[in-house]
C-alpha cells in the first residue's frame, strides 16, 4: 500500500509530495505474504464454487415477492422473473447477502467505534497484548488481510479494508447487479469472512485495552439470572453489545467509591463484556429476558448502547418509570441529544421525569449521569419494583375473550388462550408453564385486542421460580491459547477428540432454551470440546443439575476434551474461527498470512468443528455463520433458522460430489460425505445432536479417530432413533474405521450395502496443493 501525501508536517521536518510505503514491521513477522492479502470479492470465488458445488443451496422463500425497488413488487413464483430479470433463486440469495451485509456492517461499525474510542483514550500505539499465552493474537486478521496488528492503531487499516469490501458487497445487491445465485452465495461467504475479521478487531482491541481475561481457562464465574439482583440497591441496567458506556459506568462507580452501593446488571453481549471488565457486574440474560426483567420494575435506570435492543425499550421503561439513556449514534431512539449539557441538568431532568430519556454520546458523562439518576431515583421507585398481585393477574385474565389472536401471533404458537382460561379460575400454573417456551417477544400482547399484559402475567406466574433464577456463567475468556492449540491440535486433526461443538447465537428457541443445555451436556459427557458464546453461553448457564450446579461448575473452562469454553460476547465468536485457524497454523504449520484458501481447505478436511446456533435470529448471526462456512465449518440452526431462507446441503448418495485430491499423488479419491452439510436447520434437538456428531467427521480422520467419531454418531443415532443409521457404509473407509464395540453389527450393515474399502488420502480440494502431479 502506497500513500502519497501532499504535505507532511512532523515535529522533525516538513516534506512535500512524499511517497510513503505503509508496510508492517517485517522483523516481527517473517512469514511471507500469501496469495490473497485483502481479498476482493472474487479472489476466493474459486474456493466458494468448490464448496457450493458440494453444498448446493436449497432456497426456502419467505415470500413469493420481491419489493426492493419501485419496478416491483414483482411476483417471482416459480420461474417468473422480476422486472429486472431476476429469478427466485438469485433473489433469495440476494436477501441472504443483504442480511449478511447488515450483520457484517454491524460488527464492523461496532469495531470501528471501539477502535476509534480506544485510540482516543489510549493512543494509537497501545499494544495489542493478549497475554503470554496468545502470541497468535489475530488469526482471522492475519489470515485474511496479511496484516499482523501490533497496536490498536494498526487495526484501522484492517477496518478500512473491511468497510470497503462491505460497500462493494452491498452494491452487489442493487437492482440489476449480481444476478446469479451462486455468485451471490460467494459474496455471502465473503461477507461472513469479513465479519469474522471485524469481530476479531473489536474483541482483541477491547481485551487488550480493558484488560479482559486473556484466554484464561479459569476466568471467574459471574452471576446470571433474574434473581441475582440485590433489590436493596439502586439498579443500573445496561443493554446491548458495545461495552464502552458500561465501562464508564463501572469506572465512575469505582472512582467515586460507589461500587458497593449500586448494582450494575446487563442484558445481551454488553452483559458478557461488562463481566469481563468488572467482577461486580451481573448478567440478567439474553435478549429474551429483556421484557421480563423490565416488567419486574427492578431497574432504576436503563442504559442502551447498540444492537439487539428492543426498539420499544423507551415505552417499556416509561411503564416502570425508569429513565432511558441511549448511548449510540446508531440507535438514538428519537431522544434529545444532551451530550453537551451539564451533567447536573441532565440528571435533574431525568429524575424529575421532565424527560423520559436522553441521548448522551459523551462517554465521560454517561457513567455519572447513570449513577446519579439511579441513586436518586431508587428510593422513589420502590412502588414500581413489584409485579402485580395474583388477584390483579386473575382480573387481567378475565379480560380475555379467548379470541386466539395471541396464539396466532406467537412465533412458537404457545397456547396462551388455554392458559388464560385457567388463570381466570385462579390457576396460574399453565401461564407459568409457558415461561420456558416463550421468547418474550411481545407479539402476543401486540395482537391482543383486550390489551392484556401477557408477559407480565407469565412473569408473575413464575415469580417464585424467578426469584431462584440464580445461575452462573464463566466469564468470557477470549481467545484460545496457543499452547492449548498445540496440546489438542493433534487429537482434533487425527479425530481422537471427536469434535469441537460451538454453541453460538441468539435466543430464538423454538422449544425452550433447556434444549441447548441438554445438547451441550450430551457433548460434554462425550468429551467433545464445547465452546460457547453470546446468548447461547447465557442460556447454557441457566439450568442447574440436582446438586444445584450449572454446566460451568461441572466442566472446566479449558479448550480440551470434555471442557466448556465460554469465549465471551458475539464478537468473541472470532476466537472460535480463530481456534480452527490456529490449529492449521500452529499445530499443522500451514502458512497463515493471507493464505485463506489453504487454511479453509485444511479446516474443511481436517478440523472436526461444528457450530450449533440453536436460536440464531439476527443478521449478525447470519454473517457469523457465513464466515464459518467459508472456512469449512458446518453450522446447524434450530427450526426458526429455516427463516434464513437457504440451506447448504450435501447429497451423501451422490458419490461424484465427495472426491478430493490426494495431495501426495494428485489422484482424485472418494472420501465419503464428510462433512455432509454446511448449513442445515434441524427440526429437533435430537436431529441436531445426531447431525452434529456426524458433521464432525472429516476426510483426514485417522482410522482411530474415525472409529471414535463413528461411535458417537452411531450411539447418538441409536439413542434417539432406536436403530442403526443406514448410512454407515458411507463413513467407513477401511475396516479399521469400525468401532470395535460395534464391529459385527456394522460389518453386517456394510455387507448389505456392498461396501468396499477405500483409500484415506491426504485430502485437499485445491489442485495447487498437490505435491506430486499425477501423470
Amino acid at each position: 500500500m502506497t500513500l502519497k501525501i501532499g504535505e507532511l508536517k512532523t515535529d522533525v521536518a516538513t516534506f512535500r509530495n512524499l511517497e510513503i510505503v505503509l508496510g508492517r514491521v517485517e522483523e516481527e513477522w517473517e512469514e511471507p505474504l500469501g496469495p490473497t492479502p485483502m481479498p476482493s470479492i472474487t479472489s476466493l470465488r474459486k474456493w466458494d464454487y468448490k464448496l457450493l458445488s458440494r453444498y448446493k443451496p436449497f432456497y426456502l422463500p419467505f415470500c413469493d415477492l420481491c419489493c426492493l425497488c419501485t419496478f416491483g413488487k414483482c411476483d417471482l413464483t416459480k420461474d417468473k422473473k422480476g422486472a429486472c430479470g431476476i429469478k427466485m433463486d438469485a433473489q433469495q440469495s440476494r436477501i441472504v447477502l443483504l442480511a449478511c451485509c447488515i450483520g457484517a456492517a454491524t460488527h464492523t461499525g461496532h469495531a470501528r467505534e471501539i477502535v476509534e474510542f480506544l485510540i482516543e483514550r489510549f493512543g494509537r500505539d497501545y499494544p495489542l497484548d493478549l497475554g503470554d499465552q496468545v502470541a497468535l493474537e489475530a488469526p482471522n486478521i492475519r489470515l485474511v488481510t496479511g496484516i499482523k496488528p501490533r497496536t490498536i492503531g494498526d487495526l484501522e487499516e484492517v477496518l478500512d479494508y473491511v468497510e470497503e469490501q462491505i460497500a462493494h458487497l452491498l452494491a452487489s445487491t442493487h437492482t440489476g447487479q449480481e444476478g446469479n445465485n451462486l455468485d451471490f452465495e460467494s459474496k455471502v461467504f465473503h461477507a461472513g469472512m469479513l465479519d469474522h475479521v471485524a469481530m476479531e478487531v473489536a474483541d482483541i482491541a477491547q481485551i487488550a485495552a480493558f484488560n479482559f481475561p486473556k484466554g484464561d481457562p479459569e476466568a471467574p464465574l459471574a452471576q446470571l439470572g433474574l434473581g441475582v439482583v440485590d433489590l436493596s440497591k439502586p439498579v443500573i441496567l445496561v443493554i446491548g453489545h458495545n461495552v464502552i458506556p458500561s465501562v464508564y459506568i463501572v469506572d465512575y462507580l469505582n472512582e467515586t467509591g460507589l461500587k458497593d452501593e449500586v448494582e450494575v446488571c446487563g442484558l445481551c453481549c454488553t452483559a458478557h463484556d461488562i463481566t469481563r471488565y468488572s467482577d461486580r457486574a451481573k448478567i440478567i440474560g439474553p435478549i429474551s429476558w429483556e421484557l421480563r426483567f423490565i416488567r419486574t420494575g427492578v431497574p432504576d435506570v436503563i442504559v442502551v448502547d447498540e444492537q439487539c435492543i428492543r426498539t420499544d425499550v423507551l415505552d417499556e421503561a416509561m411503564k416502570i418509570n425508569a429513565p432511558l439513556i441511549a448511548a449510540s449514534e446508531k440507535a438514538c431512539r428519537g431522544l434529545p441529544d444532551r451530550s453537551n449539557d451539564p451533567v447536573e441538568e441532565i440528571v435533574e431532568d431525568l429524575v424529575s421525569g421532565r424527560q423520559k430519556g436522553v441521548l448522551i454520546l459523551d462517554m465521560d458523562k454517561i457513567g455519572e449521569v447513570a449513577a446519579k439518576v439511579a441513586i436518586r431515583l431508587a428510593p422513589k421507585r420502590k412502588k414500581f419494583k413489584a409485579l402485580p398481585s395474583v388477584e390483579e393477574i386473575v382480573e387481567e385474565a378475565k379480560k380475555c375473550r379467548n379470541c386466539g389472536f395471541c396464539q396466532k401471533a406467537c412465533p412458537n404458537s404457545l397456547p396462551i388462550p388455554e392458559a388464560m382460561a385457567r388463570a381466570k379460575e385462579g390457576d396460574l400454573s399453565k401461564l407459568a408453564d409457558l415461561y420456558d417456551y416463550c421468547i418474550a417477544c411481545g407479539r402476543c400482547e401486540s395482537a391482543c385486542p383486550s390489551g392484556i399484559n401477557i408477559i407480565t402475567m407469565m412473569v408473575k406466574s413464575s415469580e417464585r421460580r424467578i426469584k431462584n433464577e440464580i445461575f452462573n456463567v464463566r466469564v468470557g475468556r477470549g481467545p484460545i491459547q496457543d499452547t492449548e492449540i498445540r496440546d489438542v491440535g493433534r487429537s482434533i486433526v487425527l479425530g481422537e477428540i471427536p469434535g469441537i461443538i460451538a454453541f453460538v447465537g441468539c435466543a430464538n428457541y423454538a422449544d425452550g432454551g433447556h434444549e441447548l443445555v441438554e445438547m451441550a451436556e450430551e457433548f460434554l459427557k462425550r468429551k467433545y470440546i464445547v465452546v460457547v458464546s453470546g446468548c447461547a453461553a447465557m442460556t447454557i448457564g441457566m439450568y442447574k443439575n440436582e446438586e444445584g450446579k450449572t454446566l460451568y461448575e461441572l466442566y472446566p473452562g479449558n479448550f480440551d476434551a470434555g471442557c466448556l469454553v465460554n469465549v465471551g460476547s458475539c464478537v468473541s465468536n472470532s476466537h472460535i474461527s480463530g481456534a480452527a485457524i490456529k490449529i492449521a497454523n500452529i499445530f499443522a504449520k500451514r502458512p497463515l498470512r493471507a493464505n485463506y484458501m489453504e487454511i479453509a481447505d485444511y479446516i474443511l478436511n481436517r478440523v472436526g468443528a461444528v457450530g450449533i446456533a440453536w436460536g440464531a435470529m439476527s443478521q449478525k448471526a447470519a454473517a457469523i455463520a457465513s464466515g464459518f462456512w467459508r472456512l469449512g465449518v458446518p453450522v446447524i440452526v434450530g427450526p426458526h433458522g429455516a427463516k434464513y431462507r437457504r440451506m447448504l446441503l450435501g447429497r451423501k448418495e451422490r458419490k461424484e460430489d465427495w472426491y478430493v485430491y490426494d495431495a501426495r499423488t494428485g489422484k482424485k479419491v472418494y472420501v465419503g460425505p464428510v462433512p455432509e452439510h454446511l448449513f442445515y436447520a434441524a427440526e429437533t434437538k435430537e436431529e441436531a445432536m445426531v447431525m452434529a456428531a456426524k458433521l464432525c467427521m472429516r476426510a483426514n480422520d485417522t482410522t482411530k479417530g474415525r472409529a471414535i467419531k463413528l461411535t458417537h454418531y452411531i450411539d447418538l443415532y441409536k439413542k434417539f432413533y432406536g436403530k442403526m443409521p443406514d448410512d454407515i457404509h458411507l463413513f467407513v473407509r477401511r475396516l479399521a474405521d469400525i468401532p470395535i464395540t460395534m464391529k459385527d453389527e456394522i460389518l453386517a450393515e456394510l455387507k448389505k450395502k456392498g461396501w468396499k474399502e477405500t483409500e484415506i488420502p491426504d485430502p485437499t480440494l485445491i489442485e495447487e496443493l498437490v505435491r506430486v502431479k499425477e501423470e
Partner: protein
Amino acid sequence: MKFEPYQTAEIPGPLKAIPIERPQTVAGIIRNAKRPIVIIGSKIFDVAPERTIRDIIEISREVGAEIVVTGGINRKFEELGVKEFRSMPAMELADRLRDPGWKGFDGKGNYDLAIFVGFRYYYAWLILSGLKHFSPDGFRTLSIEPYYQPHATFSLYNMKIDAWADYISSIKESLKRG
C-alpha cells in the same frame, strides 16, 4: 379466517394452496398420485390424537405410500406398532424431493405427491415454499395439517383438532371405499 394462514404474518404471495373443503377430494388427490409419499414431522404426537396418527398410517398403506418420519420420532412411532417407515431429516428429504433425478427410497424414482403432517407451522411453511418454487413440474404437495398451509399445492383449512381428526378419518374411509 378459514383459508388464511394460521400464523398471522405468514402471508405467502400470489400463488396459494388450493384449500380443500371435502375429505373426498383429498382422497381423490392421493388416489390419483402415482408415487405419493407421506412425511410425518416431529410434532405429530403433540398435535394429533392417536387415532388420527393411525388413520394417517392407514391412508399411506392404502395407497402404498412410503412413510417418512422426521426429527427423530422413530421410537414413538415404533411404539405405535408401525414398522415399515423410513426416517430422514425433513430438510434433507425436501432437498431430494426437488431433484427430478433423485431415485427415491426404493430406487424407483422421485415421488409426485408429498403429503405433509405433524410439523411446526413455519417450518413446514418454509419447506413447502422451497418445494413450491423449486420442484419439477408435476410434483405437488399436500398439507393435511389442521390449518391452512398456503405454500402447499393443496391444503386443508384452519380447523379444531376434533374436526380435523374426523376429516382425516373421512379421507381414510373414502380411500378404503376406493
